Every structure is written in C-alpha cells, then in structure tokens.
C-alpha cells in the first residue's frame, strides 16, 4: 500500500472523529505511517456483524414476548454476550444459567440471583423482572 492509497472512507470511527494508524510506503519507497478514517470493505463486514447482533436481539425480544424464554436471554443478546460469557460474569455454571433461560424457572428466582444478573446488565432488578418483550 502506498501513502496516497490509504483509504479515507466514512466509518463508525470517523463518526466519533477517530482515525487509525496504517503502515504504507512513501514516494521514495520508505515505510511510514499515516492515518485512515476508515475503509469501505471493512465497514461492510462490520455492519454485517452489527446486523446479525440486531437480528438476534429482535428474535430474543420476540421470544420473550411469546413466553418462550426469560428476559435474561434478551439482555444477554443486547449486551453482545453468549452463554459462556454470561455464565462467567455471574459466576455460575453454564447449565444453571441455561436453566434460568426458562420462563417457569425465571419467575421463581430470588432477588439475590436476579440482582446478580441485573448488575451485569447494568439495569435494576425491577427492569429485569418486568421486561415483557
């Protein structure tokens, strides 16, 4: 890559006024660094990933509304987590967290356990309990 080829496309970085450092060759063939505001192929891939997450969050919301899963699943997806990450954050076994995904088990959880989840999701216990999708 030559310095004049360093892409300056719009991206999620440029929206926050951030630029990243790239390595490229100057006109004399020497390596140097220069800033890039973003690159379209990369944004395409990143946006694709974001859409996938959005879709998963929407699905989870629908499933909570249908009474198929507990609100924990929705907030897990919303925080870009999966089962192993969530289990690690609440310091519980994966099978136990998975059990809490069932609405019937979730309604019987005591406040201490609910608070553990709520803290990880940065919401109140009430918000977690009363989320209806």
């Amino acid at each position: 890559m030559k310095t004049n080829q360093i892409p300056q496309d719009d991206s999620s970085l440029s929206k926050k006024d951030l630029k990243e450092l790239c390595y490229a060759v100057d006109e004399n063939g020497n390596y140097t660094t220069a800033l890039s505001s973003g690159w379209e192929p990369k944004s395409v891939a990143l946006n694709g990933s974001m859409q996938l997450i959005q879709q998963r969050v929407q699905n989870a919301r629908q499933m909570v509304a249908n009474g198929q899963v507990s609100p924990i699943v929705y907030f897990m997806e919303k925080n870009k987590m999966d089962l192993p990450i969530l289990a690690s954050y609440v310091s519980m076994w994966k099978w136990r967290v998975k059990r809490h995904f069932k609405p019937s088990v979730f309604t019987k959880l005591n406040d201490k356990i609910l608070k553990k989840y709520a803290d990880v999701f940065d919401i109140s216990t009430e918000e977690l309990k009363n989320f209806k999708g």
Partner: protein
Amino acid sequence: MQVEFKHNQSAHCENGVASNLLKHQGIEISEPMVFGLGSGLFFVYLPFIKVNFSPAFSYRPMPGWIFKRMAKLLGIKIKRQKFNSPEKAQQVLDQNLKNGIPTGLQVGVYGLTYFPDEYRFHFNAHNLVVYGKTDADYLISDPVMQETTTLTHHELEKVRFAKGALAPKGHLYYPVYIPKEINWEKAIRKAIKKNCNDMLAPVPIAGVKAIRTVAKNIVKWHKKFGVAKTNHYLGQLIRMQEEIGTGGGGFRFIYAAFLQESADILKNEKLSELSKEMTEIGDMWRDLAVQIARVYKKRSNQQDVYIMLSKNMLEIADREEEFFKKLKKAV
C-alpha cells in the same frame, strides 16, 4: 498524581504499549521492531473455537506472546501481576503511579467507553498504559487512540475485571530491568528465523498451511452452510485482517516495515528486497478483502464467486510459502 509519559499512536495495542513503555525507559524501539522481534506475523485458523458465531481466525499469535518474545530476546525483564481482588489490584496500580512508574494493563474492550459502539465487544486482551490518577479519573494512554484519554475509577475497575475468555484479572505489567548493551543484530536474526518456522509449520491450522485450509473451506462452507453463513464467516475474516490494530493487510505491512528497518541494521540488501515483496503480499490481502466485500454486498448465490475467492487465497498462500523460504535463507 501524574507521571511524565509520551503517548505515541500505534496500529496495534500490544506493540504500541511495549514500544511506549520501552521508549519511556530510554530505548528507541519502533512498533514494527517490537512486532518483528516478537515474531508477530502469523495466520491461525481454529474451527473448533467460535468467536462472534464464526470460526476463529487470526493474523497474529496469541495475545501477549509478541511482547513476551521480544522482551526475552532483548533480555528485558518484565514484572507481571494478576489479582483476585479489585481493591488489591487498584492499590498496587496506585502505588506504582506514586513511584512514578507508568504501568501497562490488560483490559476488556467491551467497557472502553471511548471506543465507538461497533468496536465494543467481549474481547479481553486489549492493552493500554495508565500514567496518572485524578480524583475522578485514571489517565490513559491507549496506543490505538490518537490522543491520551481517561476512564473513571469505576470504569477502569470494570475493564480490568472483565470476564469471559482470557479474563485479565487485573493483569498489570511494567519493565523492571533493561540490559545496558543490546545485541540488535542477533535478536533480529533469531526472531526472523522463528517467524519463518512458524509460518512454514507442518500443521493444517497454523501458518501458510492454515491459509490453504481456510481457502479450501470457503467452497465447502458455501455447499454445506449456504450463502448467509459463508458470507458471515468471510466477513469475520476481513474484520480480523483489517480492523483496528493490524496496520492494514493483516499485519503484512507492519512486517514489511520491520524488514526494511532490519535491512539497515543488518546491512542486508536482500531484506529490503524482501520488504518490497511483503508489501506486495499485503496488497494481495487487501485485494482479497475488496473482493469479499463485493460478494458480501451482492449476496450472489453463484458458486463460482466462492471458487474465485478460494483460488485467490490459495495464490496468497503460495506467495507466502515462497516468501518465507527465501527469508529463512536471507538471514
């Protein structure tokens, strides 16, 4: 409380922290030199580990290895500490700052409030330097940022104790011993040889052979999983190659810069030739990313586009194999 610390932006966090911490100790070492001495150029494919619902790819070794290898080669001693209790972790960090020691930290990316939302995911091997503390904040030199920044005390605790894979557990580190004389020539030769061996390793999930495995799998994914999943996997491949930290082309340009710097130090003209070749290989990776993005956007269902991507990636693998065989002979 604040330590005089010079912040230099770098492409990658690990190289950047290492370079900035060593510059603070009076060793002039560039980011490409850190990367090269850490034998940082790599390709690895871990189909049995899922990251963001895709197999794991990486263009570099395990987090932390580059810094460790580089320090070992140069004879630099690094003190490292992990903690069970956040209070203790904070005490040790504060004591360091009081003693005037800028301190490197391993942190989780998800809680870094100064990153755009799109970049905040659960990856726990980011690196930054803390060089001061005020009543409300810690002063942060995050090497991928243009300027220094801050995190509140609470935010810093959160990122130091992020959970999940590679949990940092408050991990902090700083150089405690720097040798008076450093034999750069010897270190560079050794690091280059190691990098060649890693890239030419006879296993299907590492180095050149891993690139071939992925290239062949592109066609298989399309047959087995369909367009949406294949495109998602390919999208992850681009992200690993180009997202913050690689300097472009999956670290190939940083490595080319290292070879150019080494050519001067070793007075080896061959290395500057090879640096040019590595730049061309980096350009090939960039072209591949452009092609993948095109396929991704069109969602074309034609099998031949995946065969074409696969073919182009195999070509890169051939180029890299030939390259590392030559590089091995050149030092």
